[in-house]
Each structure stands twice: as structure tokens, then as C-alpha cells.
């Protein structure tokens, strides 16, 4: 092992050794499930919680009988550091073989046996190979290819390895010979037997369907969560299973040759540039007589790959022609001979090559995006014309995975004997079978449960309680010999045995309650979180395997872009609810948005809620999430949000250089999305990250913006604390966030951001009118005015408008304000002449008359009805909106009433609130709640409240004559609203 170049993080502890947070003896008591047979004191039990054994409900359909036979007979040999006890130490060889046979007959009845084989598709195996080395399997399991080999396809490697003996290292019985641990176990990872996956051994153990089902839902078989759920789809699980069991496939040179070609059929929009479609698995495969594309199942977005052997009758220069729609390629012996790639209509391309007489491997690939589809393959013998390739020249080897062999047809008596063995040998202590019967119940067997009522009821071998074991006089499992009862653990390392003895000598110590930190460490070790995550200087990708952790190369983030994040202090970093989601929800689903780091190839697995338990609470406690004095964010105000917006964009701190903004990519490298940040993070941690990135222990490339306590950006007096508060306030806007300046994408190219002057845009607005004027203000309070009905429709805060639907293509989309923080103004005419103040509001045709712009660019909207002219100037005010309303008329139109505001809801006993200290009336119980003031020339005035079907505020108009002119009668109101 060359460890010379390992990075600093490989030094896991001061001593340079891997640091085990859990004392080994304690861990072994847990891993070996000692409590299955030995009663454990209740106080100690939490420290030796067993790692549950595999569920055997479908074991007969999953494992191959030969494997079971060898495994049951020699669990310790087949599988070093195995946790399965040897059941037959006290049996003669004949007795053992008889018992094993009966057990297998019984186990064979559990689960279904798929008898049909499964096609072996090179592309699918290749996909599984990528998954295995990509999604995180190699965090715990040894890689099966070294990184160099991953650059080559399996077929290429197969050709390279043709001389090697695949059976090396395995004796005649298929049992692994003594193998140096250092080779099998990556130094530094937890010494966990299942971490070893030898392809040959695995191929002997599983059948394809059984392994695929296991990989798709591993928690169903291994409820302990020691094999977590990586969120593989059924297709992915099958590809991975086929890759892992690739040695079951009939070797290429021994297969029987069949006429025609093998085909693989793809359904996807395939790469038009070359015939290698990495990551795309075929959805069907089989044999075809020739290059027949009628095997396709649809006419667009599909691909076909034909492969097999082409018999060349005579040596010479051979030419080949591909006519296809869209692209196609012909390769012989791995060499491209005809390249007719690209998206195109029916097109013929030819190519030639010198060939020896005899068999050559041929591969023809074609894809179709849209429109017509065609594939014609021709050849031209030396000196001859082009013509079709005769069927007798084509052949292929049918590759298949075998189906389940089954266990023959054992008699019911044998099966019943196996079932009895299963009980008598104590298998029921650890394994569920799904078979009913009191004797098959795990609980009825166990003596290890800390349940006083079960104490003394141990059936099995009279295993003594744990406290009764005498470390001074080891016996049974604790001896190096095979003495003791028929069922016993065999510790294959003396150090392990010593560690257990030491722990048993001070068993009472295990009753001491653990700190949250220690409990976290134990939980993380148990679930092997440390294989990917570093926490408090422990764990993280081991240098030997670190190079397998990969990410989107375009992310250009270095190790941050390929390693799962460190978990130091994570309890005080992430919100509890988000932490809960990360641990307990499948974030690998179809929506990649759910993943905070979609650029990591490694997936965060799912361990099952039972195994995660109260980890969130432990983390929060251990990391001080609840301690007093943690920084809290300021309440978001419009000015704070605006400052944050400026800081996030170009010209500010430039967060968007590295952080994507929702669906809009960042400008440079990519990292965690700005969307969702404040839902995931605790403010105190966010603040710490920004003020001093290195203090978070994240090894982050996050820049330190504030040198010497001063910001480079002249916002909020360059005060770092206030700028952090502003960024947080901006980020809490969520979906309403105004896109920061400088983003480069079609989505934001149409974003209107009012800067120093108001912005106006005319749009079709949904549920309002096809003649709507939207006005946005630099104060981030905006409104929509319906020109068709001559009325103020709504006002809102935050983002102003995205005009993509109005300004792109033929456009004509119905737009909506991109903010949920809206206030709807009363429908209908702004004023009406009423005989009684409470009369129903009439439908009047107020006419829009245009607008006047003042020198600051603020519009005043003009409308009229029956000679009454209204000038309405809405403008930002105190984070809300104020309206200056000027009325003029030729004569004092009687009974004119202004409709100030309307709520749909409001009880009969509703009363008008009095103005508070700020001069505003606070309508706290209304929906929406708001603060309002109405003024006329005399000062504050009280509108009349109409209570009935909702609440409505109305105000009669008082005219005053001013000057002469055509409309000398005037009235003026100012309405101020904060919502």
C-alpha cells in the first residue's frame, strides 16, 4: 500500500492510527450480537445494542445453495471476520453435512426462485460498474477496478486479462484461501467483514434477481442499516447486481455461438456524436437475425446496438456502407470503420479496412432523435459490388446470467427436519424467516433481551448471562479452541478475544450513561458514517479510496466538490428539521433539487429511521444547538433585504460567482444553492461561516470577505455584521428572492430590477386584465394598475417582475407578480356617487386617461368618470404604499364616495380600531392584517366602516373650490397602507 502521498486528512488521530471512538470489546459485543444468547443487564443493553442479522424471509430466492452449503459449514473460513457463529463445532463431519443439507432444504423454501436466466448486457454491466465506483459503494467496499482501469471498458479489460486465471486465490471448493487482511480491508476503515466483495465469492453467493432486489431495498434484508439504501432505481439495482455478479456470465470464449446478432435497445435521447452512451442502460436486449431496427418499441429517441461476430471469407480490403436516419457507426474489432454519426435524414457513408479471413467482432450502433428512422448495412468484398451482408456471416454468443438453481426437490420430511434444526441450533435467535410458529419467533428464543420476565428462560445451550461469564476463566466462544457448545462465535483474531474479555471484566462500566458526543460517535461508527464524513477529526474518505469520490468536473470545487461534507458541529449548523430530512428522507429521488450538493456523485444513503433513532437530538445536544447566546437573525425589513440583494450580486460580494440561484447556474464554479439555504442552516452558523470560514471546520473554499473588519462593498456602512444580517434577510425571501445582478441565463435576462428610478412595463396580467401597467420601485414596493378598468389592482413587495413571458418569442403569456407578499386593492370603480353611503357599490365605467411622469419617474395615473377627473399616485411609503388621490370636477358632484379598502371577512361585532402611537389604525384581526391611515386637507380622517358581508372602509368626498379653470372643484386624499 503506497501511503506516501496521502493528504493530511489521512492522519486520523494523533497517534497516526485509526481512532476507534468505540472501545473494541464493547463494539464486538454489539456486532456479534452476544445478547442473542446471553442475557444482558438492562443498564448495559444500550451499549451493546445488537446489529441485527439478515432477514431470511426471501433467502432461498436470493442466495445460491452451494454458497449456503459452504457458508454454513465454514462461516469463519468463507468470510473472514464473519459474525455468523459456527453451528457445528461439536458435530462430526457427517453429522454436519446432514444438518447443513436439511437446513438448506428448509431455507430453499423461503422466497421464490426465478428459474429463467437474465440476459447479460455489456452496456448494463458497464453502467453497474460506474454506479459501484460512483454512488458511494466504494466508501465501504473495496473498489473492484483501480482508477486506471475505470478508463477502459470491461470488454477492453477482458481482452487484456485473457491470460490470467480468474480462479486465482480460490481453492477447489471455492473457499477463499488465507488472504492478507491488508489486501481485503482498506486500512483505516472499520474492520467490517462485509466490506470485502470479491467478485468470485459474490458470484457464488447470489443470483442476479436476488441481489438486485437486495440492492434496491437493502433495509428489507438487513434491517440494521449496516447496508444502507442508496436510492437505486430498479434499473440501477439490476445493473449493479449484474456487474457485481459478472463472473456468473458464461465466459465469452466458452459460449455457444448463435446465428444473427445480439442487440441492445435504448430509450433515451442519445449522444449523436459517438456510439458510446455512458450511463445509459439498455431497456431491452435479445437476438436479431440481422441489423433489424423493427425490434424498437418506439420511433423517436431510441437507439440500437448490434454486436456479434462477422465471418470474413477472404482476406483483402473490405468496404462497408451505413445508410441511416439519424446517425450510425460500424466498428470492427474495436476500430471505427464507418462513422455516420450526427443528427440527419437518410444519409449513406462508406468506409473501408484491410481484414484477414476469419471471425471479427462487429458492432453497429444507431440512434434516432425525431422524424424518420432507418438503418441499412452493406459490405463490399474486394473487387465486388456493395451488397447486403448474408445472414450466415453473422453470429453471436448468447450471454446470460443463470437463474436460481433451487435445491432440488427435498422431501417434506427433510424440509421439516431443516426447520427443526433452525430452531434447535438457535438460528431463530438472530434471523427472521417469515415462517409462522411460536418456536420460530425470535423473542421466544432470546435470553439476551433485558426483559426481567424472560430472564432464566434461555433455551439455547443454557448460555449463561453476560454477567456470569468469568473473564478469568474463559470458556466457549471466548476460547481459542473449538471447545464449548455446538454453536459458537469464532473470533479469528486473538486481539478481539482479549478485548472482549477486558470488557467483560469491567462490564459494570458499560452502565455509565454516555455523553451526547459519545453517543453520536457510536451511532456514526455503527452506521459507518465515518466512511464518508469527517467529524471532530475522525473519519472522512480514506486516502486510498478518496480518488473514487467524484463530482461534476465542471464544479471545479476541488475536494469540496467530491467529498461528502464534514459533520463537525453539524448539529449547530443545520436546522433540526432539515437534518431530520437528510437522515430520513430519500433525497436521491427524481428531483435532484432535493439534494443540496447535486454535483457530488456520491449519494447520501438512507439508513432507516430505527437505526438513525434520536441522532438529530443527540447531534443538536452534542454540538450546542440549544445553548444560550447563539446569534439570531434580525427581522427582515425591505431595506435589509435590498442590501442583501446588492451584496449577493456582481458589484456586491458576488455570491452568485459560486452559488447557483435556484435553476440558474452560478457564474463560475458551483456549490450549494442560494435557494433553501436559510431553511437548512442555523443563522449562528451562517454568520460564523461568512465572518470566518475556516472556523467552521468545513475545509471550505468559501472566501473570507471582510478583512480587518471592513467590507469591500459600500453597503450598510461596510459593517460585516450588518452585511451578514442583510444577506440572511435576502435569502429568507425564498422563492420571492430578486435575482441578484450579474446572473447570466435566459430566466434572469428578463428580470426587471428597479435600481435608481421606477420601472414601468405593460403586460397581460393573469386574473387582472390584458391591459395592465406594472410599476416597480427601487424601494421594492411595486404595484399593478389595470388600465382597462382604471383601477389600482394590487401592490407587492420583493421581486418586481420577470417579463420572459411578455418579451420572449411570440410571447403573450399571462404574467403574475413573482411575489406572494401582495395586497389586493378593492375591485371595481375607485369612486362612485351613492345616495346612501352604504349602498351597494355600482359598476361604473371609469375610463383610463393616461399617465403623467414626474421628474423622478413616478407615474400618476389619470382616469375619469362623468367629468370627474382622478389623479392617483401610488408610491412606496414606509415599506408599504401611499396613494395620493387628487379629484377635480366642473361642479361639486354630490354624494361622491371613495372606496378606501375592503376585506372579505369580518364579523358583525367588528369595530374600527383607533389610531395608535404611530398614527396608523392597526387592523390586526383582519385578513390581511394591515395598518392604515387616511388624510385629507384637514389632516387624519376616519373612514366609515361598513360591516356586513366583509368590512369595507368608505369616505365621502368633500369638494372645495380652488381657482377658476375648467374643473375648479377639487378634493384630495392620501391613503397610507402597510401590510
Amino acid at each position: 500500500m503506497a501511503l506516501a502521498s496521502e493528504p493530511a486528512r489521512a492522519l486520523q488521530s494523533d497517534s497516526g492510527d485509526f481512532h476507534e471512538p468505540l472501545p473494541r470489546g464493547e463494539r464486538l459485543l454489539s456486532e456479534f450480537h452476544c445478547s442473542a444468547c446471553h442475557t444482558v443487564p438492562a443498564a448495559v443493553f444500550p451499549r451493546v445494542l445488537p446489529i441485527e442479522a439478515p432477514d431470511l424471509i426471501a433467502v432461498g430466492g436470493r442466495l445460491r445453495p452451494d454458497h449456503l452449503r459452504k457458508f454454513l459449514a465454514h462461516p469463519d473460513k468463507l468470510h473472514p471476520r464473519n459474525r455468523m457463529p459456527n453451528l457445528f463445532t461439536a458435530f462430526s463431519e457427517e453429522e454436519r453435512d446432514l444438518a447443513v443439507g436439511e437446513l438448506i432444504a428448509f431455507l430453499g423454501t423461503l422466497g421464490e426462485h426465478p428459474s429463467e436466466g437474465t440476459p447479460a448486457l455489456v452496456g448494463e454491466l458497464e453502467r453497474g460498474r460506474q454506479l459501484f465506483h460512483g454512488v458511494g459503494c466504494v466508501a465501504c467496499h473495496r473498489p473492484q477496478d483501480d482508477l486506471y482501469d475505470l478508463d477502459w471498458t470491461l470488454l477492453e479489460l477482458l481482452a487484456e486479462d485473457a491470460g490470467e486465471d480468474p480462479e486465482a486465490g480460490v481453492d477447489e471448493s471455492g473457499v477463499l484461501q488465507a488472504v492478507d487482511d491488508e489486501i481485503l480491508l482498506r486500512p483505516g476503515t472499520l474492520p467490517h467483514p462485509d466490506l470485502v466483495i470479491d467478485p468470485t465469492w459474490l458470484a457464488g453467493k447470489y443470483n442476479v434477481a436476488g441481489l438486485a432486489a437486495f440492492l434496491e431495498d437493502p433495509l428489507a434484508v438487513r434491517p440494521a442499516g449496516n447496508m444502507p439504501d442508496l436510492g437505486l432505481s430498479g434499473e440501477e439495482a439490476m445493473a449493479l447486481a449484474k456487474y457485481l455478479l459478472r463472473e456468473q456470465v458464461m465466459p465469452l470464449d466458452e459460449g455457444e455461438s448463435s446465428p444473427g446478432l445480439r442487440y441492445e435497445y435504448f430509450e433515451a435521447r442519445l449522444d449523436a456524436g459517438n456510439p458510446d452512451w455512458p450511463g445509459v442502460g439498455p431497456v431491452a436486449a435479445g437476438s436479431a437475425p440481422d441489423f433489424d431496427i423493427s425490434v424498437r418499441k418506439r420511433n423517436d429517441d431510441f437507439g440500437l446496438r448490434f454486436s456479434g461476430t462477422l465471418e470474413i471469407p477472404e482476406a483483402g480490403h473490405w468496404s462497408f456502407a451505413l445508410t441511416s436516419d439519424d446517425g450510425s457507426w460500424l466498428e470492427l474489432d474495436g476500430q471505427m470503420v464507418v462513422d455516420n454519426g450526427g443528427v440527419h435524414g437518410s444519409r449513406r457513408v462508406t468506409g473501408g479496412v484491410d481484414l484477414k479471413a476469419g471471425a471479427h467482432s462487429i458492432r453497429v450502433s444507431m440512434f434516432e432523435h425525431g422524424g424518420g428512422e432507418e438503418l441499412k448495412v452493406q459490405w463490399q468484398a474486394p473487387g465486388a459490388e456493395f451488397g447486403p451482408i448474408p445472414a450466415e456471416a453473422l453470429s453471436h454468443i448468447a450471454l446470460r446470467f443463470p437463474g436460481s438453481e433451487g435445491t432440488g426437490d427435498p422431501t417434506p420430511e427433510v424440509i421439516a427436519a431443516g426447520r427443526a434444526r433452525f430452531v434447535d441450533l438457535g438460528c431463530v435467535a438472530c434471523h427472521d424467516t417469515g415462517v409462522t410458529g411460536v418456536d420460530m419467533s425470535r423473542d421466544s428464543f432470546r435470553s439476551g433481551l433485558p426483559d426481567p420476565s424472560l430472564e432464566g428462560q434461555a433455551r439455547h445451550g443454557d448460555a449463561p448471562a453476560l454477567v456470569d461469564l468469568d473473564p478469568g476463566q474463559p470458556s466457549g466462544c471466548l476460547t481459542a479452541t473449538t471447545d464449548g457448545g455446538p454453536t459458537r462465535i469464532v473470533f479469528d483474531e486473538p486481539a478481539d478475544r482479549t478485548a472482549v474479555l477486558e470488557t467483560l471484566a469491567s462490564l459494570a462500566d458499560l452502565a455509565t450513561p454516555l455523553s451526547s458526543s459519545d453517543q453520536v460517535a457510536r451511532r456514526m461508527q455503527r452506521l459507518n458514517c465515518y466512511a464518508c464524513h469527517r467529524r471532530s477529526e475522525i473519519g472522512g474518505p480514506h486516502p486510498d479510496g478518496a480518488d473514487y469520490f467524484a463530482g461534476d468536473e465542471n464544479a471545479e470545487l476541488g475536494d469540496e466538490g467530491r467529498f461528502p461534507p464534514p459533520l463537525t458541529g453539524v448539529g449547530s449548523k443545520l436546522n433540526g428539521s432539515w437534518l431530520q430530512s437528510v437522515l430520513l428522507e430519500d433525497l436521491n429521488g427524481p428531483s435532484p433539487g432535493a439534494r443540496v450538493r447535486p454535483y457530488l456523485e456520491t449519494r447520501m444513503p438512507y439508513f432507516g429511521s430505527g437505526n438513525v433513532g434520536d441522532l438529530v437530538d443527540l447531534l443538536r445536544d452534542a454540538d450546542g444547538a440549544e445553548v444560550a447566546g447563539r446569534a439570531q437573525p434580525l427581522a427582515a425589513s425591505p431595506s435589509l433585504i435590498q442590501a442583501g440583494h446588492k451584496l449577493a450580486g456582481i458589484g456586491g460580494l458576488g455570491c452568485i460567482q459560486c452559488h447557483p440561484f435556484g435553476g440558474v447556474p452560478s457564474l463560475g464554479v458551483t456549490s450549494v444553492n442560494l435557494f433553501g439555504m436559510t431553511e437548512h442552516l442555523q443563522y449562528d452558523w451562517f454568520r460564523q461561516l461568512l465572518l470566518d470560514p475556516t472556523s467552521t471546520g468545513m475545509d471550505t473554499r468559501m472566501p473570507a470577505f471582510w478583512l480587518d473588519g471592513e467590507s469591500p462593498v459600500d453597503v450598510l456602512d461596510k459593517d460585516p455584521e450588518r452585511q451578514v444580517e442583510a444577506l440572511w434577510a435576502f435569502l429568507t425571501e425564498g422563492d420571492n428572492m430578486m435575482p441578484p445582478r450579474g446572473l447570466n441565463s435566459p430566466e434572469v435576462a428578463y428580470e426587471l430590477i428597479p435600481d435608481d428610478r421606477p420601472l414601468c412595463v405593460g403586460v397581460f396580467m393573469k386574473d387582472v386584465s390584458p391591459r395592465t401597467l406594472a410599476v416597480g420601485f427601487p424601494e421594492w414596493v411595486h404595484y399593478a394598475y389595470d388600465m382597462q378598468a382604471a383601477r389600482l389592482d394590487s401592490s407587492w413587495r420583493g421581486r418586481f417582475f420577470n417579463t420572459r413571458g411578455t418579451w420572449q418569442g411570440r410571447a403573450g403569456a399571462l404574467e403574475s407578480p413573482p411575489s406572494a407578499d401582495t395586497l389586493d386593492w378593492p375591485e371595481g370603480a375607485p369612486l362612485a356617487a351613492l345616495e346612501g353611503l352604504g349602498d351597494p357599490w355600482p359598476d361604473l365605467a371609469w375610463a383610463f386617461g393616461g399617465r403623467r411622469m414626474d421628474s423622478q419617474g413616478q407615474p400618476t395615473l389619470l382616469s375619469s368618470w362623468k367629468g370627474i377627473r382622478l389623479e392617483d399616485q401610488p408610491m412606496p411609503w414606509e415599506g408599504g404604499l401611499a396613494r395620493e388621490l387628487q379629484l377635480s370636477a366642473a361642479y361639486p358632484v354630490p354624494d361622491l364616495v371613495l372606496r378606501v379598502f375592503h376585506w372579505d371577512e369580518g364579523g358583525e361585532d367588528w369595530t374600527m380600531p383607533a389610531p395608535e402611537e404611530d398614527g396608523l389604525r392597526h387592523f390586526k384581526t383582519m385578513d390581511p392584517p394591515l395598518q392604515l391611515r387616511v388624510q385629507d386637507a384637514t389632516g387624519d380622517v376616519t373612514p366609515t366602516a361598513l360591516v356586513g358581508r366583509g368590512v369595507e372602509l368608505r369616505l365621502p368626498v368633500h369638494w372645495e373650490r380652488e381657482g377658476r379653470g375648467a374643473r375648479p372643484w377639487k378634493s384630495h386624499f392620501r391613503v397610507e397602507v402597510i401590510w
Partner: protein
Amino acid sequence: MNVILLSALTLGSGLIGQDPTEDDYYRIVPLPIPEALVLEVSGITLLEDGRPLVCNRRGEVFVVENAYDDPAEHVLFHKFAEGLQEPLGLLRQGDWIYLAQRGELTRMRDVDGDDRADEFETICDTWRVSGNYHEYNFGPTLGPEGNFWITTNKPFGDQPFGAVPWRGFAMRITPEGEMIPTVCGLRSPSGVQASPWGDVFYTDNQGEWCGASKLSWLKPGSFQGHPHGIGSCEQDLWPYEHPGEIPNRVLMPEVSKQVPSFQMPSVWFPRDKMGRAPAGFVWDTTEGAFGPFAGQVFVTDQYEASVMRVSLEKVQGHWQGACYPFRRRLGTGALRLQWAPDGSLIMGGTDRGWPSLGTNGRGFGLERVVWTGEMPFELLEMSARPQGFHLTFTEAVDPESALDPESYDLSSFTYILHSTYGSPEVENETLSITSCTLGDDGRSVELMVEGLRAGWLHELHLDGVRSASGAPVLHPRAYYTLAFRPED
């Protein structure tokens, strides 16, 4: 070889050995638009001081500074107004700028002289808006009685706020805001312009019920062919006869027998031979500053990114005439044109939503077409005679080639009025030229033709004709829409 050398010598030393091209006579001067500005030009007018004012489809209006620099190196754009709903034309009258928005005819002006509009007045919003993207309004142009003429596009697809009347109309709007629907049956009338003599014309785009793109006279009360909006003619606001039932699949020359108010076009623009999407047009009022075509009409084609030329004459009370290729390879699909004070032609446009052959790669643009001062040898005008056509050239012709009937190819075809998209060219016929007579001016030729058909488009090719100095015709083809045949 002699011929080529001779013609080259007359054109200046830079052209020896090459056939003349459009660039030799009409240069294109692009006005650089800043990267941050999306100027999908949809209207152009001149401020009183001569600076161009342009609007775009985004509802913004800009003053263009230093627009006439050549080369244009210091062009600046200053925002004059925003918040308008898809204005597709600008017209200045005194201080006021008039424009048609989707929902209203508006006028605006800059009161305080800071080059920003301060006042916007709604003159008329009698029509309503359905929310369909295709309900564009074009114009206005000022009619002879002082009314503002606009044309309204018909919708395609969803009308989320409900169907509305008066689509596919030309309307007059009085200065007081009264709306007078004036012509019905328009399809996609993307140019509307009053002629120097007062009659108002418009361009329409080929499609259903519009067999070929055309320039047509907006004769009050007439029906232009598309039945989409004629239900509105039942309203009292329509001051004319209802056009009646519109027959489907009828030869164009036959339509007026069934629909008396049907207006035969003045000029058909055959698809791809001329263009696909005619839009803005102007009469050449430069009195020679723009070359030899004074009094004729220049029409943009948005698809071709070209300018076409049209000559009109009145025959039996009907305006008709011919179209000729003029200038291709503009930077963008041109929508609008406007004479600059120096007699060059300002052109602006966009291909947003519809394809164009524009060359600047930005999808919109603003440019000037400037006459180099060199005289192109062109067919200046093709006009109808009772028994043939009278051809006038921009320069004296070579009599030998011009009087040889073999120098010409003449054929005719017509179109069908039907509900499907566009019309094939039907009833094709090759016509024989029986005699060619040279005019006294040495640059005109009278063709006597057998088989003229009224209602047919006559396609003339002049590949054999040479100028007196031996040059071929720069654009040796013309398309005359012989709606009516002159009487003897």
C-alpha cells in the same frame, strides 16, 4: 469580355472584372446597439430636430443620438419612455408622438425638454383586448382628413380574456378619440401608411384567406379577403355595407363578382420570389437624394431581411402596379423604415418570434441604407398598357438587346382565395411578346403582348436587356399585378 469591361469602366475603377452588386449602389450602415440593449425596433419617427425616435416591442422608446454618423461610431440611445404595450409604430405631430398600443391609441410628449416623455394621453380605447398574443395593432398613419389610421391583427389561438370585435380592421380614429372602423378583412396588416396624395395603403402577410402577401389600398368600406372579423360589421359602429358571405376556393379575379366590396390588391409579392412578410413602407419623397426612384414605394420584408420597390399607377380608378427587388442582406428582419433628413433610409426591425434571413446575428437591428451616388441600371417602372407594358429604365438601353423579344420572358398566374394557408400560383401561362418599340428618350421600351389577363400577376424577366453601356439590369425581374387592364 468587351461588354464586361465597358460596363465596369462606367462604374468606377474598383469594380473592374466583377458584376455590379447592390452594395455598389446602396450601402448599409449599421448603427451599433449596446450589448445590454434589446432594441427590437417596431417603430421609427423623427423628432423635430431630426434625431430618430425608435420604439421596440418591449414597450420602450429611445432617442438615437449621432445616428447619421458614417461610419456610425458614436451612436447613443437615450430612453424616452417605457411601459407601453407592444407599440408597433410611431408618428410625430408637432410636440406629440402618436402610437398604437395593444389597448389604445396613445400620444405622449416631453414637456420639460429632458428627452423623457412626461405625459401620456389615452386618445381612444374603444376596442378591447382578448389577451391573445397575435392581436397586434399597427400604425398610426395620418390620413388626409386628419384622422389617425391603425390596422388590427387577427388573433391566433387562446383568447384568455374572451373574444373581442374589430380584429382584422383598418380604423380611423379622430383627434377627439372617436373610432371609425373603415376597412375589414385584414389578416396580418403589419404596415399602414398614407400616400402623398392621401389614399391609405397597407401590407398584409400571406396565410389563410390571403393567397399571397400584398400591398393594398385601404379604400373605405372595402373588404380585403379575410372573413375572421367581419362579424363586427353587424355592429352599428361599422358605417358601411356588410361584405356578405365570403366564398371559399375562388380565383382572385372572380371574388369581386360574389363580394362586391372585395378589394383587389395593388401589388402581390410572390412568395420567395419577392419575400414572405411585407411590413413597413414609405414613398420616396427625397426628390432624388436617394437615387432615381422618387415617387415610388419602398417596402420592407421581415423574413427576407430585404427592401422591395413598388411603382403604382391608377388604372380604372384602382391603384395597381409592380414590385421589384431592391436591397437584400439587411442586418435583421426589417419592420419599419423612415427617411432620414439627408435622404438616406433608416431601417429597423426584429425577427423575434418569426424567422428572418437577417445577417447581424442579434435578432434585431437598426441601420441606414445610403445611396452611393452611382446610378444602377434598373427597370425603373413597368406600367400597364391596353395591349402590353411600358418599360422605363434608369439609363439608356442598348437598342439591339432591348428590342429583341428574346431578351424578355413574360408569364402570368393568379391566386386562389381560400381558407388554407397561402395559395399556389395557378392558371400559369407564358405570354408572347409580339413587338418591342424604343421610346424617343432612348430608355423606354413598349412591349406589345398577346394574352394579357386582368386579375393576373404578370411576371417579367429581362435577362437579355443591356444598358447602352452594356450593363445587365441589376435586378432583371418585375411582377406586375394587373388587377385591371387599361382601356384603349
